[in-house]
C-alpha cells in the first residue's frame, strides 16, 4: 500500500456536548486519493478540519509523518486545503491569489523550498550572461530570484488547472468553475504533501462537475500528492477515489475500494447509501447456500455459521428478468420509469418492494420472474441495532 502518511488514533470531537467524531481510527497512505463519504452531519468535514489544523481533537492523536500534530497550528502543517466556497481573496487578482502562500513565507523557508544551491547557480549563470564580473551573491539578488521563481511557479500552477492567460483577471470576473480551479492552483503551488478538498465541486453544475472530477484525478496522479476528498455524493466518490471511507454519526461504517464497497457492503447503511440496494432478511443454510423468500439460492465467498440469519443485498442491476415459470422469485410490476440509461422497475415480491434496473420496458401489472447469479448476492452480518 505504500508509506503511512496520516494516522488518526481514536479521535473524539464534541461540539456543545454533542459527539461529532466518535473514536475514529484511520490510516491514510502516501499518494492515495481517499474520500470521506457520508451524509450531512456525519463528521467528515470535522475530521478533515482536524487534519488541516482548524479544529483540535478533544481526545486522540493526529499523527502526520510519525509526528503528533494535535497542537500544531494550521500554518505550520505541510497541508493545504481547497475550500467548499473557494475562499479566494477578493482584493487580489488570479496570479496574486495563487502566489499568496509562497509570497508570505519566510526567506529561510523559500530558500529551502527553491533549493538555495540551485538558485545561486542560476544567478551566477545570469550574471555571466550579462557580462557582470561581480560573482558575489547578495541577499537582494536572492530575493529577486525568489520573486521570479514564485511567479514562475504560480504560472505553472495556473497552467496545470488550464487557466493560462487569466493571471491578471479579478476574482469576481471568473465563473464558479474557474474559481474552483484557481483555488486548486493556489493550494498546490505550495507543493503540499497532503491536499484536503472539502466538497469543492458541490456548487458546480453536473457536466462541469464531471469534467472536474476527471481533471482532479489527473492532477493527483501527475503530482503524486495525497488527496483527501470530502463529499456526500457517492457517484463522485466512486469515480475518483482509490479508497472510500463511509462515515455515519462520527464513526467509520466501512473502508475500502469503490468496487469493494459497492459489491460487498458490510452493513445496511453502506448498502443503502452506496447505490441502490434491495435488502432481504435470509438464513445462511450452509456453505454457499442462502435461503430467503421461500427459495434457496447459491452464493459464494462467505463464511457464516450454519443457519445464521443474514441480510441479503442484491443490486437492482443484478437482477435478470426471466419468464416466471422458471424463476425462483416472482413479482408483480408496480411501476416502470424510464431513467435514460435503463428502466427502473418496481415490483412487489413476497410483499416487499424490489427495485430492478432493466433495458426493456415491462408493463405495469405484469408478473415477472427474477433471477440472480450467485456472485451477485452479497451477504451482510445482521446488526442488532439496525
Amino acid at each position: 500500500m505504500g508509506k503511512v502518511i496520516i494516522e488518526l488514533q481514536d479521535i473524539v470531537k464534541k461540539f456543545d456536548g454533542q459527539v461529532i467524531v466518535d473514536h475514529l481510527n484511520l490510516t491514510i497512505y502516501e499518494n492515495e486519493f481517499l474520500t470521506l463519504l457520508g451524509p450531512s452531519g456525519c463528521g467528515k468535514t470535522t475530521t478533515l478540519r482536524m487534519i488541516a489544523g482548524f479544529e483540535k481533537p478533544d481526545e486522540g492523536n493526529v499523527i502526520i509523518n510519525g509526528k503528533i500534530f494535535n497542537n500544531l497550528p494550521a500554518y505550520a502543517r505541510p497541508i493545504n486545503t481547497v475550500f467548499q466556497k473557494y475562499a479566494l481573496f477578493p482584493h487580489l487578482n488570479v496570479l496574486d491569489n495563487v502566489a499568496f502562500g509562497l509570497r508570505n513565507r519566510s526567506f529561510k523557508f523559500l530558500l529551502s523550498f527553491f533549493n538555495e544551491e540551485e538558485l545561486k547557480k542560476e544567478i551566477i549563470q545570469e550574471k555571466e550572461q550579462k557580462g557582470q564580473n561581480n560573482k558575489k551573491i547578495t541577499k537582494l539578488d536572492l530575493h529577486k530570484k525568489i520573486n521570479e521563481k514564485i511567479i514562475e511557479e504560480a504560472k505553472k500552477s495556473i497552467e496545470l488547472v488550464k487557466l493560462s492567460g487569466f493571471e491578471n483577471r479579478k476574482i469576481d470576473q471568473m465563473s464558479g468553475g474557474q474559481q474552483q480551479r484557481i483555488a486548486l492552483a493556489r493550494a498546490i503551488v505550495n507543493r503540499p504533501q497532503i491536499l484536503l478538498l472539502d466538497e469543492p465541486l458541490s456548487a458546480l453544475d453536473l457536466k462541469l462537475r464531471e469534467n472536474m472530477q476527471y481533471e482532479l484525478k489527473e492532477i493527483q496522479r501527475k503530482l503524486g500528492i495525497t488527496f483527501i476528498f470530502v463529499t456526500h455524493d457517492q457517484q463522485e466518490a466512486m469515480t475518483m477515489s482509490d479508497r472510500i471511507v463511509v462515515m455515519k454519526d462520527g464513526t467509520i461504517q466501512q473502508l475500502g475500494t469503490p468496487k469493494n464497497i459497492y459489491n460487498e457492503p458490510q452493513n445496511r447503511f453502506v448498502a443503502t447509501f452506496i447505490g441502490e440496494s434491495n435488502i432481504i432478511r435470509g438464513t445462511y443454510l450452509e456453505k454457499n447456500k442462502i435461503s430467503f423468500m421461500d427459495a434457496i439460492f447459491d452464493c459464494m465467498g462467505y463464511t457464516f455459521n450454519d443457519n445464521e440469519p443474514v441480510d441479503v443485498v442484491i443490486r437492482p442491476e443484478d437482477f435478470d428478468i426471466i419468464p416466471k415459470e422458471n424463476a425462483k422469485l416472482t413479482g408483480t410490476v408496480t411501476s416502470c420509469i424510464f431513467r435514460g440509461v435503463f428502466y427502473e422497475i418496481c415490483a412487489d415480491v413476497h410483499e416487499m418492494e424490489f427495485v430492478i434496473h432493466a433495458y426493456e420496458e415491462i408493463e405495469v401489472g405484469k408478473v415477472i420472474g427474477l433471477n440472480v447469479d450467485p456472485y451477485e448476492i452479497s451477504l451482510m452480518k445482521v446488526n442488532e441495532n439496525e
Partner: protein
Amino acid sequence: MNDSYKKLAKPYEIWLYIFALFPALVMFALIFLDTEGINLSEASLTFGNFSQLTESSTIIAFVNSLKFAFLSTLICAILGYFVAYRLFRSKFKNKFLILTILILPMWSNILLRIEALGNVMQPNNIITDILSKIGIHIGIDIKGTSVAVLIGLVFTYLPFMILPIYTALEKIDPSLEEASLDLGVTHLKTFWKVIFPLSIKGIVTGSIMVFLPCLSGFAIPEILGSGNIVLIGNVIDQFFRNMNYNIGALLALLILILILGAIFLVQKVDKEGETLL
C-alpha cells in the same frame, strides 16, 4: 427600482431643491454682493469679499482646521480600528449590545458633553471636589490648549470611526482567514495581508465621517480652546453672527467645495459605492 418607489421619493427631491440647492445658490450669489444681512433688495455687486481670503487670520485658521482635522482623523483611525478589531475578535454573545454602549454618548447633547469635558479639564471641578473630600488632590489644567481641543474632537467623533470599521470587519468572509492560515501564513501576516486590506473601506468611510465635522466645526474649539483657538468654522461663525453673510458665505462655500472634493475622490476610488454605506 419600482416606479412607485420613485414617486415616493419625489417629495424629498422637492425638499432638497428648496432647502438645499436653493440656499446654496443664494449663498453663491451672496459672495459677489454687498448686502445688509440677507436682504437682497439693497445689494451692490462687488468682489471685495474675496480680499478676506488673503487675510492672515483666515489662512491660519484654515490651516489650523486642516491640521486638527487630519490629526483627529488619524488618532480616531488608530484607536477606532483597535476597538473595532477587539470587538470583532471578542467572544461576546451580543456584540451589538456592546456596540450600542459605545455609541450611547452620542445620544446625549453634544454641547453638554463638551461643556462637561471642558469642566473636567479645569483645576477646580466636581471631580476634584469629590476627590479632595477623601484626601486626593489632583487636577489638570489643560482647558484652552490644542491638546484639549484634540481630546474633545477625538472623544466626540470616535464612535463615527468605530462603527464603519466594525461593519467592514464583520463583512469579511471568515473562511478567507482560514484560507490564509492554511497557506502557511501566520496570524500576524494574515491580519496585514488579508483582514486589513479588506477593512480599508471601513477606515475610509470612518475617516470621512470624522474629517468633515472636525474641519468645519466651531463649538468644540471654542469651548475647549477657551476661545483662543480659531478654526475656520469659528471665523465663519463670527461673520454670520455679525450679519456679514457675504464673507461668511464665501468661506462656507470654500469648505463645502473641499467636502465635495473629498467625497468625489472617494467615489473615484470606490466605484461600487460600497464605502459610503
